[in-house]
């Protein structure tokens, strides 16, 4: 029962490809759950077209998707601490350069976990 956790920070123009990559990784890692945490000022109306195809395609994983604004960082940290299965999860943070400090803070908060950070170039 391995959990794969994706944290995306930034505008959602690159979200679709990030989700697709993460989905493939989760399959390769034989994960059973995919937690997607999106930190952005984009609205749900802008997020759904980016995730729709993967969500419709998926039948095997449990998926949980959170959406936080930049002003809700504390809530996001606290929620990630609760939902991430610390002994059984891998976390990848995708972040645009202008929000790198958020990724740093997440790494400090979840310091006992294995976290990979990838920079996403803004289109």
């Amino acid at each position, binding site marked *: 029962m391995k959990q794969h956790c994706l944290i995306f920070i930034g505008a959602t123009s690159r979200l679709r490809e990030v989700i697709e990559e993460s989905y493939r990784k989760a399959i390769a890692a034989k994960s*059973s*759950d995919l937690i997607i945490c999106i930190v952005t000022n984009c*609205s*749900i*109306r802008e*997020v*759904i*077209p980016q*995730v*729709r*195809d993967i*969500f*419709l*395609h*998926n*039948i*095997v*994983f*449990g*998926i*949980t*998707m*959170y*959406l*936080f604004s930049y002003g*809700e960082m504390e*809530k*996001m940290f606290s*929620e990630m601490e*609760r939902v991430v299965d610390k002994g059984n999860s891998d976390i990848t943070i995708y972040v645009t350069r202008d929000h790198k400090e958020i990724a740093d803070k997440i790494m400090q908060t979840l310091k006992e976990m294995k976290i990979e950070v990838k920079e996403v170039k803004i289109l």
Partner: protein
Amino acid sequence: MKYDFVITTDRTMMTNHHGREFLGFLTTSPAIGIPERLWMWICAPKPKVDKEGKPVEAPYGLRKIEAALIDAGFKAAIIDPDYLSKHLPKAKALLIGHHDFFGLCAPSNTWWAVIKKEPVNRKSFIALMNSRPVREFKSHGGKIIIGGPAVWQWLHMEELWEKWGVDTIIDGEGEKVIVDIAQRVLDGRPLPKYVYTSPKEAPSIEEIPTIKGASVNGLIEIMRGCPRGCKFCSVTLRPLRFMPIEKIIEEIRVNTKAGVHHLLLHSEDILLYGADGVKPREEPLMKLHNAVLSEDVDSLSWAHVSLAAVVYAQRNGRIMTKLTDLIYSRVEQNTIGVQTGIETGSPRLAKIIMPGKAAPYPPEKWPDIVEEAFSIMADNNIIPAATIILNIPEETPDDVIKTIELIDRLKDYPGLIVPMYFVPLGVLKNKKELLNFRIKAEHVEAMWACLEYSLRWAPKLADAYLSKHPLVRLGVRVLLEIIKFKKKSLEGRVRQLIEEASKGAYTHKIY
């Protein structure tokens, strides 16, 4: 009483259809030939409610969510949509379920495409979301949580998702996850926007709660999941679970205690209860029916059977005859209604899209299986409401012609046949482009064949099946006469329609 969690749906779902499930099909269509208010009264009358606005009978799926919350210690209740203003000001969350929020499922999409008017279920749901109590609830910070088998539709409705401020969409079996979501609401913790519960996370038999109040028309689930693996179906993705008879009886008693003495056994295939794979077995089926008929029920119907199971059951021990003999000897009825799926008359297409539908027989034999099953059902006074699916992926004109030929072979066996346009569900749910479709010339011919077949048998069905309510009987009779009249006036125009359809004149576009 104050409820933290108010569970509801719109009028087309919160109704008992005058005690006749088949009338519920009319909620998937726009009003035809009569005013919409009258149409709604015929198919979706207001249910009996208590003084708080809690319906005596409520949709079974909502009852399961209510039961899960109550069992977990939450204050939750199903409330009729007309009574929301009484409860929402004190509630923390509004939970809404539906089986076709936006009219994108079949047959709503089919009626919508053919008649070019929005079906009443869609209109009714949109009216609920735009209603003053719901808007005020949201503006005061209330949480809106959506679930049910049609939640996939929200992934195509992001503008309405945002406009109505929907907090969480739950896709999949909800009994376990709703408890976590409810606790988050009370704790003020963030809610996920979207949750998909995978088959692995589906609740076990022990985790499926017993309903606390009566279900619409006495519907009781006897199993979940289906082993046939049809590519257009979402139920087949769920693990197969049989409800123990004791649990079924417990739920029947909830219904009879509330004064609901009809029993509608629900499963994707009633005949597979306790089956050996796709081969029905006499012993569990007779045991189940003997047990449920020993309760205080005065009539019984089945939600769905598969045609291959009908054939197998009858060929192997005349199980269909034994079951119907048992039912007719124990309750005051001499017919039984059931939904079933023909889907296609083309063995080629059956092999591609539903290779397990004919099992344990080969898909090449599908048309023969269908005819034999209809014959068995006719012999045993079982009245099927069958569906055919148009615009199946990889469909050719020849496939549709084979379906029309099959409908012709069935003309001497009573039933209803309803055409439906393909909806991408199950493993094909990512084929969103299929939500748009063009009505082709051969589709018009197939729909016409369905209409001719169904109108031929409608008077017999109306006599056998209709509600005892004189106004409902009159309403449906008038409706049938209007349809017959319209059909006559349409006959001359059908050729023209076919010609126009062949030029691509009729399209249904969601995207």
